[in-house]
């Protein structure tokens, strides 16, 4: 790992990944560093195609850090990461991908992450994406997340894509059994001619399953975003989907909500709001002495915080 790699990693993870209890660092399609512990095992799949992470029952407060970096122009990296979270385990997983593309060809990472939560398991999953580099080749990220939640499990998923990614299609699918809760928070900023599409498909199968999906996005310049959510309630359950977008310049945002209640006790709510920065927000901050540009930055940074 060289200095640039370290910087890119920091940019993605926000901290030194080797400080975690267990980690796996992948660079340009290959695992380059790994640490496991008695409770958390990381086993590589064949042909560098990904990893299996096993977290033992009752593991408390473990952390797993699995960043991916790509520094080769023209590389397409497809990876399958499976997480098997034991009963009543409580862990934090940090994943993310940084692409630094200084060349002419597109660099692409498709991460397929599958989470299997056993009964009572609790997971906080943090995912960060960013693109760097000065080349005119694109930085493309297409993450797929699948979540299977057994009775009484709980998962929080926080995703952030704040800069430099040209093209994204993000797909998240989840199946929730009894007494489970899934909280998803997504933050996306697109600029120039970037495109981002995110799709959520959540099936509330068991009684008292609930989900909260919050998407906050900002589309500036000529960028385009699409938000699709598809929630099905099969039984007594609760869902709240909130899509909130700010558009600037020629930015475009499309929100497609779909909620499908198949049971009289399913309570499903969808809220979507798209618009430019409210004039009164700008005026309030300007009345505190900020210039219009400063006020805009404060509003957008807060919104995506």
């Amino acid at each position, binding site marked *: 790992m060289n200095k640039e790699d370290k910087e890119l990693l920091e940019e993605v993870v926000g901290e030194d990944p080797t400080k975690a209890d267990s980690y796996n660092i992948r660079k340009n399609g290959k695992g380059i560093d790994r640490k496991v512990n008695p409770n958390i095992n990381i086993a590589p799949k064949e042909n560098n195609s990904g990893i299996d992470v096993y977290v033992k029952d009752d593991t408390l407060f473990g952390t797993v850090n699995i960043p991916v970096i790509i520094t080769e122009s023209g590389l397409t990296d497809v990876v399958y990461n499976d997480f098997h979270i034991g009963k009543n385990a409580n862990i934090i997983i940090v994943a993310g991908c940084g692409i630094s593309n200084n060349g002419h060809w597109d660099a692409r990472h498709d991460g397929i992450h599958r989470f299997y939560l056993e009964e009572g398991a609790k997971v906080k999953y943090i995912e960060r994406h960013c693109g760097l580099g000065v080349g005119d080749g694109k930085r493309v990220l297409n993450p797929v997340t699948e979540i299977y939640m057994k009775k009484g499990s709980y998962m929080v998923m926080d995703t952030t894509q704040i800069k430099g990614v040209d093209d994204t299609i993000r797909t998240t699918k989840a199946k929730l059994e009894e007494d489970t809760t899934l909280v998803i928070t997504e933050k996306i900023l697109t600029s120039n001619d970037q495109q981002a599409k995110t799709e959520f498909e959540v099936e509330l199968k068991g009684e008292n399953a609930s989900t909260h999906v919050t998407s*906050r996005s900002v589309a500036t310049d000529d960028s385009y975003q699409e938000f699709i959510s598809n929630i099905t309630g099969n039984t007594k359950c609760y869902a709240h989907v909130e899509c*909130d977008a700010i558009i600037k310049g020629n930015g475009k945002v499309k929100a497609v909500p779909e909620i499908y209640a198949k049971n009289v006790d399913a309570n499903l709510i969808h809220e979507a709001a798209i618009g430019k920065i*409210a004039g*009164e*927000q700008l*005026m*309030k*901050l*300007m*009345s*505190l*002495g*900020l*210039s*219009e540009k400063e006020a805009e930055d*404060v*509003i957008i*940074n*807060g*919104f*995506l*915080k």
Partner: protein
Amino acid sequence: MKKHANVFANEITCEFILMMIIKIERRFMLELKDICFERNDRKILNHINLKLDTGKFYVITGPNGSGKSTLAKIIMGIEKPDSGTILLNGEDITNKAIDERAKMGIGFAFQQPVQFKGITVYDLLKLATNKELSKKEACDILSKVGLCAIEYVDREVDRSLSGGELKRIEIATVMARKPYIAIFDEPEAGIDLWSFQNLTEVFKEIGATSQGTTLVISHQERILNVADEIILLGQGTIQKVGAKEEVFDHIFKPKKCGKEVAPCE
């Protein structure tokens, strides 16, 4: 010798005139000249002339829709008058932007507080003071408006706060700036009676200690009671300026029926 004396005398008169000018300017810190504001063929403000002295506490009152908030917004620069001029210490600020006026010392607490997703009370107070503000200092400002500070500094200024809480925070952002001209648009609206007494004290204190001018839009007698002068606005014009008694006399003077209020068709 005679010539010299003349020059001397001249100098004195110059200085005297200069001093007079400064005095006059100080006396009339803010001046609105012939302000008109019309929307949808309705004269919302109709030839408003007003001078506000330094160090005084003014209250604008008048019926709903009489143009009070519009007048305040015009002073802050949020609305632009169709005609007329606004002078601050003699300087024409009619075409100055909101942030320029803020930097010149005008502050305005909105009637409807603005909400921000992801921005905390502490963030907002830091922006307002435009300096390194410790949490302790932020808390002190908040306790002035009757908020138990620790509970509030880290909360987001969004709809999770109650109407009264938002209103207090809005007032706090203006107090934090210590503006020369502080405008509060119906600060008491939505604030419970218990803490209302307290708030009146705060305004009194601002009035007493600040070198600047305080302008409060209000319908509340308690606030009218502490005013140095009350400005009564009606149908876009200033009906009366004066002490409480004079203005109340004017308000409660029996009106000729049928003329003032046109019946609905």
